[in-house]
């Protein structure tokens, strides 16, 4: 199915933020905004909820801690107990470094893998970029066009009046 989008091109982040607010206030739904760098404050105006990735990281880290402690206590304490340097079988202080490292490892990798999955990032050769300048120096606001519903000229005016330097149309084959 083909989808049609109207793209408002901006060249300044402050104008863009202002425009997003005004376009949303006018009742137009913004499909997505593309920028060459993270624009601070865009989450608030676009209504993007805070990411829950920190929670993922926390639980992955917690898994790392418990796994590391369980592994060391079980291996050296129960499965094959040996006295090393006169220390008790379960010498917790000596287990701290490995526990710490595995906590960090699990938290980092768990979070990053989740990030790739939820953001649909994977090595692929087919990439659908709306406007290639959005990875260079332009900010692109994409608005989905619904046949027969969207008033194109009004949308065009809305974007232009809010500082868009260009307004383009783009069809995307899904």
């Amino acid at each position: 199915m083909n989808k049609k989008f109207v793209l408002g091109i901006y060249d300044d982040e402050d104008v863009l933020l202002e425009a997003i607010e005004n376009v949303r206030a006018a009742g137009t739904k913004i499909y997505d905004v593309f920028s060459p760098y993270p624009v601070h404050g865009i989450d608030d105006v676009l209504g993007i909820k805070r990411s829950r990735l920190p929670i993922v990281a926390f639980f992955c880290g917690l898994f790392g801690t418990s796994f590391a402690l369980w592994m060391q206590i079980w291996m050296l304490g129960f499965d094959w107990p040996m006295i090393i340097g006169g220390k008790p079988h379960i010498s917790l202080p000596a287990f701290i470094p490995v526990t710490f490292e595995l906590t960090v490892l699990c938290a980092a990798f768990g979070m990053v893998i989740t990030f790739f999955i939820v953001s649909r990032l994977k090595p692929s050769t087919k990439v659908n970029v709306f406007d290639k300048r959005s990875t260079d120096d332009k900010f692109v606001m994409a608005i989905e066009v619904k046949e027969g519903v969207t008033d194109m000229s009004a949308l065009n005016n809305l974007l232009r009046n809010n500082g868009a330097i260009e307004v383009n149309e783009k069809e995307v084959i899904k």
Partner: protein
Amino acid sequence: MQHVSPIREPLVTGGKTYHDITEDVCRQVEAKPNVRWAAALAVALVGLAIFLYSVYRTLWYGIGEWGLNKTVGWAWDITNFVWWVGIGHAGTLISAILLLFRQKWRTSINRAAEAMTIFAVICAAMFPVLHMGRPWLAYWVLPLPNTFGSLWVNFNSPLLWDVFAISTYFSVSLVFWYIGLIPDFATIRDRATGPIARRAYSILSMGWTGSAKAWSRYETVSLILAGLATPLVLSVHTIVSMDFATSVIPGWHTTIFPPYFVAGAIFSGFAMVLTLMIITRKVFFLEHYITLEHVESMNKVIILTGSIVGIAYTTEFFIAWYSGVEYEQYAFINRAFGPYWWAYWSMMTCNVITPQLFWFRKIRRSLTATFIISIFVNIGMWFERFVIIVTSLHRDYLPSSWAMFSPTIIDIGIYVGTIGLFFTLFLLFCKYFPVVNMAEVKAILKSSSEVKHHHTSHAKSMHGTAPESNTNTHHSNE
């Protein structure tokens, strides 16, 4: 926005626009390799060849190819290992700790510094693996039940902690670096003209489009990774120092080692970043991005960490005397005035005296002086590790076992060879990867550059605040 702060100098000079940044950074990726780069790569490849030959000799004939003896069982190998790991620390420090501290000057240098970390850790890892003598059995350090039954690795041993610390450090740094590269790979992908380049950078960029939601998550991920990497940096060299500190050898068995090693690591790492960046900015025409302001900031870190290291040397000496332990006292007297006096005093000169020159603003802001001093620091930090390891081992409790160490050609070959390996990797990185983090530099452009932007008055009247403070307030919400 025009740069207005009277206190802070602009971080990006030359009135650059967003597009200029893309052009300047992508140029060296897209252009044909230049002669200077090819010449440098040729030299590095000679080093790599020396490395491969020395490794071949070590593996074929055994560790006997090295100058180690019964008394000095650790020498150049572990010296080089600790030295390389230390050099790696600056990259993570710049990308993680300075990110948490909201230091904007990190943005121009973090990419190259992180690459340096990765390559330095690869070089470092070579030494303990080769020291095993049979690297094909290196998997024995993992907690796997061995062939004789369920006998496990010894989790009480700092050498095993090292295995976990170094491998975690390497993989987390690699991921951190790669996450930062994704948006920049996307930029190169969208500019690529050749089919191979487009394909390669498409795969590397993981289908990044720069949508607002992805950026929001990306920033969260960067921040959490920074939070995780910060204690990781400190832990890695702390654990490395425990290899020594948990032993009973005079000169090693000290509680000062963890902080002292961490400071030394940052000290040598920043010196190496300076050495590399002073060359890189010149070769790739990045003077507007890596400015004197950056060099000065790094030099300030060098003064701080260099002074900490100097205090640590003095403290060690004092504690040796104060402890009243004659073996400890002898170890330190022997370091300074024994047969290895030249190593000790090289270390003192390079690490304690030379960096103090940076108190002078003129020297701090001179590229030539900085370059020379950064080389001195690199040398000094190598001697520090050598002094700690060899002078402590060569004369321990039993005079009948005292011995001297001298390196063989293979010892020297492996060390010089890892430098070749490092520069081979670094030069390939410089050519095919964006050396400066474009996305992050673009993000600080409005608040910290000389560029004049025609929307200045517009933005100010709309928001009622300066863009600088605007950026900061939003930053803290993430």
